[in-house]
């Protein structure tokens, strides 16, 4: 059937590692995403710990300034692009088809391609450590310090190319989820019945599709300046470094919501389940998500209050930033309303979800403080900002993701985690987080700039810095508890039933872990929280199994196309012939893929 000259027989029932390399099952890809992102999260965490060691006290010389610059750049880039975003993608992959009653995503092979391309980007970025030094200009890479004149070596090149490759991965995934959510909903699964997590993922995917091209262009411009001598950010030729800031934050602020909306979705699933109540004000939660997604485009210059854009621009962006806090606040009240008079089960996922509300609110409040342009001028580039970003990303996105891992752990693995250890891990994590990040508000307000590698004792920053460093050690211990719980439960945990939480959404109506085809019969949806309502009405039917569902078959080509991108990525930086080789491999992969039928004829 395939008319492509390369006759490689298709992997029909691959085993072992080939099973994973050729898989196009959204659940396996979700697990690949989750495990890879978690490993990268640990790497980013180690980078943070090294920095905290250096800052433990004044005038320390554990790490030299150049390495310190590389550490904070890699820490930020890794956590945002290689840890939190792909952990979100892990949930999208695993859950969206299950929540909408589908057997897979719309484009299963494109989905595999997204994952392998993400991995390629992660490898390219981290390879920079061994190939002349990591990038060192901060995660938002301001011009002109990223320019060739101020930044020789390949660090920034690796940063640019890896972000471009990650952009391809994110865009491919976002297209896929948009089509999946619009087009693959089970009969009756209208947008007004769509689970909140899927809704928030849908908004996230739309933001990704529109925001990523902007940073793609910014990176292309920087790349052309560095590689081919163009003038985009060269001030002597009239270039304006502020253009980089605008392009970066036009992407960067929607990116903030790309990071937080999936977390809000996760929390909106956990709270109703363990409150035994429907989500309070479902339409309002959805609507405020949409408003956040829309207004996220109108606030980017709040990152640039000290640039000197003028009082009018600063006032406008201050006002829009204050306004965007409203839909976020609305959501917080909806979550509180969900808890109100619920019969609460305070198990591990629920603790994480409540912890999310607490810390995210603190982060939101310091965020509103930044919206005052005048006071932001005092806070800009201090540890106060570091405190804020960690309260919203660590105490917001990540805490929800960890809660989500516990909540869906039975579904993902078919086993139960250890509840006692889970709770212990949560309390350790939550307390350690406050010890680490709360003091940064004080050091920041006392004037400590971010990104300095050491400081003098006369500033009086020693005490709170030491507390933060102790907090990081506790955080590491809490993560060890988390990892131990997950790994040991995955191997030998108690077997989980299909619906261990007496939960509400469709993914709980099937066995744990779900069969390869998800649903033997595609369900017909009649209610919001359909599974819950049907349980209440006694309308659930015995689950049936099937061995006659046609699923898309595994394929080598997505992996090969991504492998080509990996090679091409290194090639662009190090050697043009290698780049051509990589691009050719990708071309072959894509061409063969487009001629390969979804299913070979039987």
């Amino acid at each position, binding site marked *: 059937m395939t008319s492509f000259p390369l006759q490689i027989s298709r992997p029909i029932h691959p085993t072992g590692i080939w099973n994973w390399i050729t898989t196009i099952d959204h659940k396996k890809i979700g697990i690949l995403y989750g495990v890879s992102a978690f490993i990268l999260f640990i790497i980013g965490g180690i980078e943070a710990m090294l920095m905290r060691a250096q800052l433990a006290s004044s005038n320390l010389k554990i790490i030299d300034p150049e390495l310190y610059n590389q550490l904070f750049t890699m820490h930020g880039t890794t956590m945002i692009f290689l840890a939190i975003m792909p952990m979100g993608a892990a949930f999208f992959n695993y859950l969206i088809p299950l929540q909408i009653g589908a057997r897979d995503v*719309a484009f299963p092979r494109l989905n595999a391609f997204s994952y392998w391309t993400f991995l390629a980007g992660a490898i390219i970025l981290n390879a920079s450590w061994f190939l002349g030094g990591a990038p060192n200009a901060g995660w938002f890479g301001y011009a002109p310090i990223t320019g060739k004149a101020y930044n020789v070596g390949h660090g920034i090149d690796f940063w640019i190319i890896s972000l471009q490759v990650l952009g391809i991965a994110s*865009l491919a995934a*976002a297209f896929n989820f*948009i089509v999946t959510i619009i087009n693959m909903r089970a009969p009756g699964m209208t947008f007004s019945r769509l689970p909140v997590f899927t809704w928030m993922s849908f908004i996230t995917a739309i933001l990704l599709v*529109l925001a990523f091209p902007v940073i793609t262009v910014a990176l292309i411009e920087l790349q052309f300046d560095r590689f081919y001598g163009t003038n985009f950010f060269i001030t002597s*030729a*009239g270039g304006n470094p502020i253009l980089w800031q605008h392009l970066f934050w036009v992407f960067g602020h929607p990116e903030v919501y790309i990071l937080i909306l999936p977390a809000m979705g996760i929390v909106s699933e956990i709270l109703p389940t363990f409150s035994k109540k429907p989500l309070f004000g479902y339409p309002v939660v959805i609507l405020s998500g949409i408003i956040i997604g829309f207004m996220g485009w109108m606030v980017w210059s709040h990152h640039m209050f000290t640039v000197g854009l003028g009082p009018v621009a600063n006032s406008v962006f201050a006002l829009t930033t204050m306004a965007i806090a409203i839909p976020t606040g609305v959501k917080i009240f909806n979550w509180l309303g969900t808890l109100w008079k619920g019969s609460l089960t305070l198990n591990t996922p629920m603790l994480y979800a409540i912890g999310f509300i607490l810390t995210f609110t603190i982060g939101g409040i310091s965020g509103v403080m930044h919206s005052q342009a005048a006071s932001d001028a005092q806070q800009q580039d201090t540890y106060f900002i570091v405190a804020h970003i960690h309260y919203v990303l660590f105490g917001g996105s990540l805490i929800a993701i960890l809660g989500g891992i516990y909540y869906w752990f039975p579904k993902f693995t078919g086993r139960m985690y250890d509840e006692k250890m889970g709770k212990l891990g949560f309390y350790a994590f939550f307390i350690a987080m406050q010890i680490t990040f709360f003091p940064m508000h004080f050091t920041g307000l006392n004037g400590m700039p971010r990104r300095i590698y050491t400081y003098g004792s006369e500033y009086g920053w020693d005490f709170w810095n030491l507390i933060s460093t102790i907090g990081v050690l506790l955080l590491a211990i809490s993560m060890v508890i988390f990892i131990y719980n997950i790994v040991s439960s995955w191997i030998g945990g108690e077997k989980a039933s299909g619906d261990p939480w007496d939960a509400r959404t469709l993914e709980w109506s099937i066995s744990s872990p779900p069969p390869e085809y998800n649903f033997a019969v595609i369900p017909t949806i009649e209610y919001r929280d359909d599974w819950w309502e049907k349980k209440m009405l006694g309308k659930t039917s015995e689950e049936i199994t099937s061995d006659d569902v046609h*699923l898309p078959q595994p394929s080598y080509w997505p992996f090969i196309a991504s492998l080509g991108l990996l090679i091409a990525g290194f090639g662009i930086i190090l050697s043009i012939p290698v780049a051509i080789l990589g691009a050719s491999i990708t071309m072959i992969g894509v061409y063969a893929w487009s001629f390969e039928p*979804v299913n070979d004829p039987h």
Partner: protein
Amino acid sequence: MSEPNNHSTHEDTTTGLNHRKLLMWAFLGSDCMFFASLIATYLVYKGKSVTGPDPIDLFSIPVTSVSTFVLLMSSMSMVLAYAALTKGSLKGFRVWMLSTAIMGMTFLGFQVFEFRDFTVNEVKISCEENSPKYIELESKLSSKQKSDYKKQCADGIEEAHVEFGMTPRTNLFGTTFFVLTGFHGAHVTLGVIWLLSLFFYSFKRGAVSAERHLDVDLAALYWHFVDIVWIVIFTVVYLFGVYEGF
């Protein structure tokens, strides 16, 4: 459920829309933001070059109008190719498809010619005292070009030929112009490859047919999009670049 087959007109999806078509629209939305960012960069830097040449020194509106017209006609040809296919005329499809691809290649040819023309551009400046052309260009010429002019005139000729070309490195106009139009050209190139693939594929029995019109429909959608982007570029870069009023 899987990637749809395109043998039937009814789509087995929630909305009835085809998966691939929806994907294409999402991609085009994303690509809009891509070009919007490039055009925004161009506009931010318009008139900010430290040295020449400027648009007015290089552009030839009549020439670019011809290539623009060719690209517009290729869209019409694309429509005819699709119409022929849905009416079941494979021969008509091939004729119009090939003509679309050829017009696309013609456009690219013009672009290559234009790029080359810009890089090797020269101006003739008379060597008389206070030559009006020299006064006009003085602020745009680099010190190297000025000394070249003086050196040539010192040899006693009447008119000096001063190199006044533009590459992506010359100035901000060169940087933004070549990157913007270059990425558009890359889009056209990809489109031509796609169109030619469909053209050659149509000689395989049953590979391109009225029932499988979606393959062509998607290529057409992409082709029209690339065309529309060019109209914006032609207006913003070329027309606004030459006519002072804008």
